[in-house]
């Protein structure tokens, strides 16, 4: 076996060979899998930098010698969705308009409910908890009809408020559980001490709990923003054509074959759509993992 000795200084107990057969296997598996996971990202990026002749004549694996951002520019500004040719930027702004209010409203409602359930239990709050838990598993598609009826009766079907309302509603069960579990895990002495000092419901929430809960609020924001940004179904049903979010616009751009398929533009639009959640993922690091893990395990 080609064992290279450890080059570093003589710290530690027992000199160990740098590469053992086991470690070689471990790293091989890890690297092969890493290539599989990175491969589509690589393809997306190099395709978006090619021009259309290179795509038709060239090889999907081989990057272009003359990278150009033309496809990105076209995807953002002038790609056709079937209805009009204003690019995916329309979808981007729509997604912002949908994501921001739904995230804020759902987090306010969920944090208050979670706080009530954890610290001010009332009759049936345990039953309520179970219903919440089960609700977060109900497939969205099953709820389409009831929500069409509700939004239609409210007179907002196929508008921006409708899609915001639906996203808010569907974010609530999971978020409430998240907040409830977090608040329940805080030391109860804090709560009791504040009570003894005469603080009431709102005071304890805003002056004692909220300042301690920055991590959980961060996790909730990440959970909601990525979830809502990535949604397709609710956008296509409730938003109405003028408010289609980015995912729906992307789908329309890719599926509209006006004047031949422009795969470089499609891939540029695809990257642009993935960019916001990816940026959140890369910059929030451990919070993202905690967010999806906590949310998923509890929900």
């Amino acid at each position, binding site marked *: 076996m080609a064992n290279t000795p450890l080059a570093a200084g003589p710290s530690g107990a027992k000199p160990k060979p740098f590469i053992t057969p086991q470690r070689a296997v471990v790293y091989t598996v890890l690297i092969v899998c890493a290539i599989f996971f990175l491969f589509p990202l690589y393809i997306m990026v190099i395709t978006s930098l090619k021009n259309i002749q290179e795509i038709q004549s060239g090889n999907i694996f081989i990057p272009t010698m003359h990278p150009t951002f033309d496809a990105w520019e076209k995807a953002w500004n002038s790609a056709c969705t079937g209805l009009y040719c204003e690019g995916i930027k329309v979808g981007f702004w729509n997604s912002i308009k949908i994501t921001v209010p739904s995230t804020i409203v759902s987090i306010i409602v969920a944090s208050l409910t979670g706080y009530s359930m954890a610290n001010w239990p009332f009759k049936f709050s345990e039953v309520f908890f179970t219903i919440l838990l089960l609700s977060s598993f109900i497939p969205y598609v099953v*709820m389409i*009809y009831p929500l069409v009826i509700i939004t239609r009766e409210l007179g907002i079907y196929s508008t921006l408020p409708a899609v915001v309302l639906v996203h808010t509603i569907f974010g609530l069960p999971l978020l409430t559980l998240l907040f409830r579990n977090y608040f329940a895990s805080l030391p109860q002495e804090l709560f009791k001490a504040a009570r003894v000092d005469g603080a009431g419901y709102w005071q304890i929430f805003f002056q004692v709990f909220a300042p301690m809960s920055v991590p959980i609020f961060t996790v909730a924001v990440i959970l909601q923003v990525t979830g809502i940004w990535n949604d397709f179904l609710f956008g296509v049903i409730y938003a109405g054509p003028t408010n289609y979010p980015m995912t729906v616009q992307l789908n329309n751009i890719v599926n509209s074959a006006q004047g031949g398929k422009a795969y470089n533009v499609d891939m540029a639009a695809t990257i642009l759509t993935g960019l916001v959640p990816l940026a959140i993922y890369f910059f929030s690091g451990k919070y993202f993992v905690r967010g999806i893990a906590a949310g998923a395990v509890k929900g």
Partner: protein
Amino acid sequence: MNRPNPLFRNLNSKIASLPMMLIVLGVFVGGTVWTVLFSFTNIKILPIFTPKQWIDGFVGFANYKRLFNSDRWMSCPAITKIGQESWQFKCTGAMPNMITYAILAIIISISLGFLLAVMMDQKIRLEGMFRTIYLYPFALSFIVTGHVWAWIMSPEYGLQHAMRELGWTSFSFGWIADRQMVMYAIVIAGIWQGTGFVMALMLAGLRGIDEDIWKAARVDGIPAWRTYIQIVLPMMKPVMVTTFVLVASGAVRIYDLVVALTDGGPGISSDVPSRYIYQNFSANLGQSLSASTVMLVSMAIVLIPWMRMEFGKKSQA
């Protein structure tokens, strides 16, 4: 002095929880009950719940009969080979497609996720980098995942074209255009998106195992791989159940990925229940509602292991 009315105890708490209570009861409970109830009627346009509409339109299980007789939902002709006693079923349709996807996604993403987690647990270098690479697809929308993989797997320009151009002329990879194979193409994309998350769950589970277990196993001279399989794996049962439920529930509701990757095609050979429900919205409401109910039942079945675990915990305490 009057004793305070119990209704007004913790009044603020009740007021703050009120919107949520209304939403949960009105939308989640109400919506589910509405869907199930009206799946037994012949309604054509969306009604608001009135008992009279329900009684007038009641048709029993007629929608379900039509649903399971429709080839788009499920068709399982028995294939008999001439001269052979044995015969087999080859099921097609939305429901069998979903089950195929669910079984493969569960098996592959859980085994691959566990393998990766074990590898990551070997005190490796650059753990953070590997974790980031495995997990980033999970941040993406299924629509994004679907379109990327559709491009990669496109027989015209994708992998197949590239391999043939590089000299491997017999290479063939046209799964997304092949009725028999298209579901496996969707599984590949689903695995790519979801395995990193399974790995993260499993790794958290592995890290949660007491160091003393490892020490004891080492003292007893048990090799590491056997410790993983015979000691650690059984101890990770709660994590496994959670992972199973999450992957399986994701598979039951699969929709966006199929829409982006194949849009149910070729033909309707990769249709799934969610897409079926959505497509029958206007034309075939009764069937759509009964399909929704079937989906709810599937979801309940998937939740059984997890509910047993939760219930078991309570009865022990």
